[in-house]
């Protein structure tokens, strides 16, 4: 693996000082790495992501990119967009924010739109799209910016199997170029197949982290899959 992209060291974080949701969350993400953020509902996965994005009121700790030029793109579980802008205008706006030229924008966006089969609806308002189409738009916008780090929250919800495969293929291509990925998901079988490392979160703190072998060791279950290892760890906690 390459050099470190992000260092996360959160002592505590939450929606207010009286409402601490996560504590003692420490991990690094390196170039080309895909880290799975795993945990049951309410464990603190989304709070961890929001802490990294800087959208939480109360974060005690440090979240540091290796250098200031490093950028991230976030794919949320619930698609967000401006109701009055068309799909293409979201692409134009994202390109403007990320200071792409018109040529760069078109060269990157056109193939992505074809892959995710949204090229026929570029002048339509995304609020009229299905959940799956809206999720594809979020994915296209993230790939358009070519960031150093992809932060992805439940990426597979609403995606059809082809879109899911295309998404994972593109993600691998980006990783080969050096991008890192932090992905929160409940689909443990998919996570086991694609992630390099795992962060297992429960009740707001990390109960285990590392490769599948490390997780198995921590759970003291040999040859078990991620799901069984995670279950064993949860029962013990």
């Amino acid at each position, binding site marked *: 693996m390459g050099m470190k992209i992000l260092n996360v060291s959160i002592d505590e974080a939450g929606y207010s000082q009286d409402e601490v949701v996560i504590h003692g969350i420490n991990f690094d993400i390196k170039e080309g790495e895909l880290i799975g953020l795993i945990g049951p509902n309410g464990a603190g996965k989304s709070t961890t992501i929001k802490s990294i*994005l800087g*959208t939480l009121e109360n974060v005690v700790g440090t979240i540091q990119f290796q250098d200031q030029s490093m*950028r*991230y*793109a*976030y*794919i*949320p579980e619930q698609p*967000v*967009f*401006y*109701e*009055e*802008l*068309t799909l*293409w*205008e*979201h692409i*134009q*706006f*994202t*390109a*403007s*924010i*990320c*200071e*792409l*030229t*018109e040529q760069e*924008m078109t060269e990157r966006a056109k193939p992505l739109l074809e892959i995710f089969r949204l090229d026929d609806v*570029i*002048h*339509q*308002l995304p*609020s*009229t799209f299905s959940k799956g189409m809206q999720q594809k738009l*979020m994915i296209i*916008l*993230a790939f358009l*910016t070519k*960031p150093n780090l992809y932060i992805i929250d439940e990426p597979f919800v609403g995606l059809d199997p082809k879109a899911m495969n295309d998404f994972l293929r593109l993600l691998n291509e980006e990783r080969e170029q050096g991008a890192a990925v932090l992905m929160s998901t409940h689909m443990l079988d998919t996570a086991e197949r694609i992630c390099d490392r795992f962060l297992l979160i429960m009740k707001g703190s990390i109960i285990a982290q590392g490769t599948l072998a490390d997780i198995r060791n921590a759970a003291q279950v040999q040859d078990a899959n991620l799901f069984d290892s995670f279950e064993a760890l949860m029962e013990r906690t």
Partner: protein
Amino acid sequence: MMMTGKRLFKRRLKQHIQFYMQIRRVAVDWAVWIYVLIPLLLTGLYQYITLWNMEAGWATYLNEPALALIITIFIFSGISISFLQSADILYLWQKQDVMGTLHRYRLGYYYTISLVKWLIVIGILAPIFMVYLNWTGSMLCALGLIVYFLQVLVGILRRRFKIQLGKWVSRFLIIGLVVVVYILMRYSLAHMATTGWVLALVTIVMTAYYSTYFIRQKQNFYREIDLDTEHKNKLLQLVLMQSAYIGGPEYLSEKISNLRKHPWLFRKSQKMFKAYTPEIGYREVFIKSLLRSKNWLLLYVQIVGFGVFGIVMFPFWLKWFMWIGMIFLIGNFLKTYWNKIWSHQFLDLVKWREVEPQKVSRHTFRIAIIPASLVLSAVLGYIILSYWGILFLPMIGLAIAFGVVEFFTKRIS
């Protein structure tokens, strides 16, 4: 305790009043009382006294066509509420008598609230009719009856149109109704001395007949509830838009759904500005979304329209106050809309170069305030200096507008 129609109505009315009280608390705090409402009330009271003393020069501009327009706007301002809720449906379907009583009380409430509103309005308009137009008390009473019953009738009809007909048919019919009512008001005001009481009698009979018909009509639960919700949402949206950004939940300030696939402007996503920079990006998003957002655009037009009305109708010194006041209000409106764009979750999707919000918003606000400033200044210019004013005052207006922009952008963080 057995639920009766009267009891259900009382409960719903209490909730209805509580809702309006909550809205009032959100929209009108002590600062609004001190800086807006009390000065407006004092100015209004002063103007009212000058009206009775025949000293208000501006009232001479109020002729019968203008008064007919004001009364027509008033007639169409009433909204009938159903007092139904989704949870009632199953119960009321089984209890037709409860529903019938609720329906009658609803109509009674609409009659009462319309009467209260009209008494206030006719009290305000009375000196204009009696002092400036030399109407008798009898003529004013006849007008009072015509307008009161017409308002009730129009309120019920509008509701029926919206419930029973398609969106466009209903809109078309309501526009037709506005024209008919305006013509009727023009005729009534011009012939009040001769036919006033006959017209009043006809209006009373028509309204009474239609009210009895309305009570017998079956209710469309879902549509009635939709209309009530739509009305409440519009009211909330208006309050949230007109207050500074107060961090209310997003769903309150957003429209429920957007059924149109393509926007009505820039249908092929044409860019307004050629460059691809964050500053231009924000500017483009601000202007395009404002132009496409029906409610926000309507509010902008309403502020300008109200300003034009005030500049035309108000006395000389108040015209200047309206001119500057409305430009200031547009500046505040732009700042509020900017907060909506700037605090949008979409901006969390990528972390890129930080932009200076004051710098970006300044240019954007200047572009967006120009139409309002030009219209208000041109109208004021024409009134005070005729065609020379149209050339001269818009330039001063632009300078003031840019000053207002400066004031508001400095308050953006």
